[in-house]
């Protein structure tokens, strides 16, 4: 059949799953079997038996106070050896001896200065929910699930900004959502929103909860009951249109589930944000997310063909599937990046592509970050960027070298040889060099042609090929690097990442100036050891690039670490803007970056947003308070 119709009813599918599970002799989906992510990228080729990565109550599998899976984490043992626990990722249970000495040297890690998390707060430590019985009574008959369990409320009340995690870990729990609801389809969402309007309940849509902008945080002064609308029960691919290569999908589907399900049919969506394992399709749309392979598949705004969003005034949608239109300002742009303050995204039609035949990694070494940027700029100019092309600064390169198991004698010998080769024969300073990672996708011929072109351009900028393995490691590290923050938080560090997009002409200066500014601010805030401030160029465009920063510092001896952190991060943001960087490339505004929105889009721009908000949601039902300055 050209068009595969999948069952509309989510409940029906789950029943099927359970039945299937019984047939295989498994009573229920167990956390340990929940993921197939073992290869370098989560987009695994092993056929999954399960339909869903997580159970409804995700905290059973995922950390309540950190990134990712409960069973996956970095830890340092008594001998000072770093180890990644868990078998979900390729580096599972391998000891990495170089991490601790390197961190000690670079950022002043001291194993005695621990700051482990408080235990999960007991129910009575949490604020009791504001009751909303009428609302619950009205939606209970149709809503798939409703919960006011403390664990659910806690999990749905935070994202992954540094200050949210720090608060959780230090037991400073603020305002929590009062109830969590799980709709199963579009019409249920419509009914719940109507009930919320009727009973004046605030709704905060919840996808993967992986935002780093404070977007799902409850506004502290919200007096009404707040309902978190967990979308992850809406995880069905409703249809696939193989002639037009589109698929219509419920917005709550988790990225890895989406890819697995599509790949089972021989297709891919190709959207790979770093949070792919945990974030949802609806979340991508609501934050204007960007994927690693955007050079082939486009960013989320290029991928979506149609979006349905439920607002208090009803559903907004485009009633056609044509590839382009000229009907005034694109209504999609009121939904893309709306950050849950205008409505909730329920269904999305996306473009899909056949799974590529060939995928190949590559890497390059450049004498300096500047020459690497010049190379990227040339690649962008010639419009021949492979699926992904990234440039890591020296610090990130070194970090990648350190997060490695004990090398065999032979491997360490060849490593040494490579170093000598670079230093002596190519005149590359290991303390200055930058590394570029490449991912090629397409047919075998396409990949071969693309590779040749890229390596030729690289040579003219002094780039030296660094092998496929280093490239593979580079991309794989993307998925474990988020776990490193939790390790840092265990040893008195605060850490965060942030991003921007900037014209090519300012890339190098922006990176340099932000680093300088952060170092100065840290010093001015009395932070004794030098901070970690590293960056990489993660995307290339015709007119500029996306830059991603990592910031971490040890807060030992600082009386108000999170206050200092906020000020340093704000200074970094201010420096980014002063150097021609955008307020955000793909993280979104949330609450964290709201103070800069007006200067970024002009007061008139803000008043336009406000007018839309006022018209669509006069009662502020979608009251997360993101994006639009008050």
């Amino acid at each position: 059949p050209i068009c595969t119709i999948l069952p509309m009813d989510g409940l029906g599918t789950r029943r099927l799953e359970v039945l299937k599970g019984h047939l295989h002799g498994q009573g229920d989906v167990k956390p340990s079997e929940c993921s197939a992510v073992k290869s370098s990228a989560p987009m695994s080729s092993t056929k999954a038996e399960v339909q869903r990565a997580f159970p409804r109550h995700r905290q059973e599998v995922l950390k309540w106070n950190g990134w990712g899976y409960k069973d996956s984490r970095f830890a340092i043992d008594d001998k000072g050896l770093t180890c990644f626990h868990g078998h979900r990722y390729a580096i599972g249970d391998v000891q990495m001896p170089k991490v601790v000495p390197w961190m000690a040297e670079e950022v002043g890690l001291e194993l005695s200065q621990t700051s482990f998390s408080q235990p999960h707060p007991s129910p009575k430590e949490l604020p009791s929910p504001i009751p909303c019985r009428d609302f619950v009574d009205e939606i209970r008959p149709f809503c798939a699930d409703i919960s006011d369990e403390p664990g659910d409320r806690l999990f749905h009340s935070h994202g992954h900004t540094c200050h949210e995690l720090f608060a959780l870990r230090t037991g400073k729990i603020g305002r929590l959502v009062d109830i969590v609801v799980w709709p199963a389809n579009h019409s249920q969402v419509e009914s719940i929103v109507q009930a919320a309007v009727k009973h004046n309940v605030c709704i905060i849509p919840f996808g993967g909860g992986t935002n780093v902008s404070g977007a799902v945080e409850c506004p502290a002064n919200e007096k009404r009951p707040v309902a978190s609308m967990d979308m992850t029960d809406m995880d069905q691919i409703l249809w696939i249109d193989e002639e037009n290569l589109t698929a219509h999908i419920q917005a709550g589907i988790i990225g890895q589930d989406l890819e697995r399900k599509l790949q089972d049919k021989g297709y891919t969506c190709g959207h790979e944000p770093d949070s792919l394992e945990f974030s949802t399709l609806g979340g991508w749309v609501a934050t204007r997310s960007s994927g690693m392979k955007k050079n082939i598949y486009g960013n989320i705004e290029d991928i979506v063909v149609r979006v349905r969003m439920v607002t208090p005034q009803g559903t907004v949608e485009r009633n056609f599937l044509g590839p382009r239109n000229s009907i005034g300002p694109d209504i999609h742009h009121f939904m893309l990046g709306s950050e849950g303050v205008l409505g909730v995204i329920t269904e999305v039609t996306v473009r899909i592509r056949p799974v590529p035949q060939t995928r190949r990694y590559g890497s390059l070494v450049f004498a300096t970050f500047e020459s690497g940027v010049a190379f990227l700029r040339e690649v962008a100019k010639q419009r021949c960027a492979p699926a992904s092309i990234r440039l890591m600064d020296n610090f990130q390169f070194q970090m990648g070298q350190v997060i490695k198991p004990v090398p065999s004698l032979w491997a360490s010998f060849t490593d040494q040889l490579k170093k000598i080769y670079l230093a002596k024969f190519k005149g590359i300073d290991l303390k200055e060099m930058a590394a570029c990672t490449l991912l090629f996708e397409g047919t075998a011929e396409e990949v071969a042609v693309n590779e040749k072109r890229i390596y030729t351009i690289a040579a003219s900028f002094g780039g030296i090929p660094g092998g496929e393995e280093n490239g593979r490691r580079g991309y794989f590290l993307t998925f474990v690097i988020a776990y490193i923050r939790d390790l840092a938080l265990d040893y008195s560090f605060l850490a965060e990442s942030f991003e921007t997009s900037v014209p090519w002409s300012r890339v190098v200066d922006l990176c340099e100036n932000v680093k300088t500014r952060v170092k100065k601010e840290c010093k001015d805030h009395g932070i004794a050891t030098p901070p970690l401030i590293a960056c990489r160029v993660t995307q290339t465009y015709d007119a500029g690039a996306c830059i991603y920063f990592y910031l971490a510092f040890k807060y030992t001896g600082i009386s108000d670490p999170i206050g200092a952190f906020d000020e340093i991060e704000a200074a970094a943001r201010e420096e980014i803007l002063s150097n021609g960087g955008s307020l955000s490339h793909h993280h979104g505004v949330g609450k964290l970056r709201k103070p800069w929105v007006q200067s970024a889009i002009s007061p008139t721009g803000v008043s336009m947003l406000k007018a839309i908000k006022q018209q669509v949601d006069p009662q502020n039902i979608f009251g997360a308070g993101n994006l639009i300055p008050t």
Partner: protein
Amino acid sequence: MGAPLVIQVAEESSRELKDVQKEAQELLEEIGHKMALPAVRSLALVLRSVLRRILKGVFVNKPGLEKLKEAVRQWPVVLLPSHRSYLDFILVTYLMFEHNITLPSIAAGQDFMNMAGVSSLLRRSGAFFLRRTFGSDKLYKAVFTAYVQTLLCSGDSPIEFFIEGTRSRTAKSLHPKYGLMNMIVEPYLDGRVPDVVMIPIGISYERTLEEELFARELLGVSKPKESTGALLRARTLLGENYGSIIINIGSPVSLHDLCQSKGISRIPHVLYPRDYTMMLTREREMIFDLGHMIVHQTYHCMVVYPSALLASAVLYQSRGVPLGELVPMVEWLRRELEERGVAVYWEGGDTLSLIHSSLQMHSVCVELTSSDLVRPRTCHLMSKLATPSGHTPSMVELLGMTLDSSELHLITEISYVHLMLAHYRNQLMFALIPEAMAALSLYHFLPCDKASALKRFDALHCALYKEFVLPKRVPTEMFQDTMHRLLDRGVVVSQRPGDYTLNSQKEHVLAFLESLVAPFVAGVWVVCHHLLSMKGGVQSVSATVHGAKVLAAKCVKEGVVKSYETLSLDLIRNALQSLTESGLIMQHTSEVEGRDRLVKVDDLKGLQALTRELEVMVTSGPSRAKL
């Protein structure tokens, strides 16, 4: 290297691109330094031995040096020393060489380029050259800007330049020059550097090497063109005693912090391409204030030597001070300055011996007579001048008078020594100027009301705007601040708000303060009269300056004006600038190439009013109170 601009210049002048490129290359050769350590090392060696012979020592503040060292390691740094001597060029480099700090690239005036050997030596010690004026030479400006900005952005070495543009012959601070300042600020606004750290440095000389040269220049005995020969003749210096030098490094000023505090955002610049230079009005204003601030801070880094106190006392009583009276005068002055936060260099030992050693060092301009009278060296010449006939001539009479050349010569010789002394006295000017101006607007009029004092203060501000680095804004605020200070110190008292009366206990303070600024006001007043005598006609600047100088000489001779400093060409030129600034006169650029600008009175009534206002302050007054 500024490639788009090279193309633009080629297009505009319809010249071959490669010719323009070649010219740009040559300009770069002309400008660029060729820092070479061996040269610096040998220079340091020579300098060390020379300084040892003529100086007691060169002192530097260690904490300042540490801060400088740290800043150089982290930031693009601009060193901004005061400028009173050619020695300034090498002193900072020498200091940094001795302390193992990356040596600076120094902006030097192009006049050095004509000195064979010296120019190449300077080049090799890090000097790069700039023309005094860029004129309309777009290419030169572009190449020079690119050169300076590359130095700054590459961050290899600090940049050093003299914000005052030239050596201050009078030892007073000069108005800042903004050309280089703009070039330094631009890269920050455009995000090419994260910050620029500016470090003011005050270099104080106990005895300025060029003291005689400066006095001669101020009187218009033309400055010998810089030549190696002249420098070699300067070898006679070696037999002299020049006391010591103090290099006081001020607190670093962060351009970033300054911009933040003034609400200057870099964001407007990100909407333009990188090579698109533009500067907003408020950024220009910021740079204007920054220039003033740096000059101010540089001067506050300066240390006052006892010689400055001695010179002040001698000029206060230019007919001679008995040695016995000089001691308490100098001590009193020291206290007054220290109360105002001025650092006075005071070696151990009693005041009298300090005065003796100072007298010895400054024997060129001051003498101790056998009757223990301390006076300007040329004091005896005063008696040779025809004594004023008791009748003080009017201005009209003076203008009609002739002065024979021997008299002019005599007067010039006297004022030569006076100007040398003034060079030292002026070193305490920066700390006292507002008070001195207020004192002059009060002293002869007490008791008086605030409105009339303010009116006179206004007139002084207008007359002295260029002479001293005064704030551009309406002087009311400055007057009020200063009055607060004078009232706090009890120099004047106020029975009722807005009314000032003399505190007879402190009359000497008022008298001394007034005496600091009076010569300058008298000078402006003479210039005003000369301008009025032009009766609406036009005169070239040089003729105006000469005319005013001759008039000043006549005034001095007839006792109409007391100070011999009024003959200073610098004073006259500044007066013309101040009057131009306030719109009273106009200076036209002559249409004939190479011709001087023309001066014309623009606002006759205004000029007459100002002249009258100054006249009351200049010509009235009892004899000076004892300090």
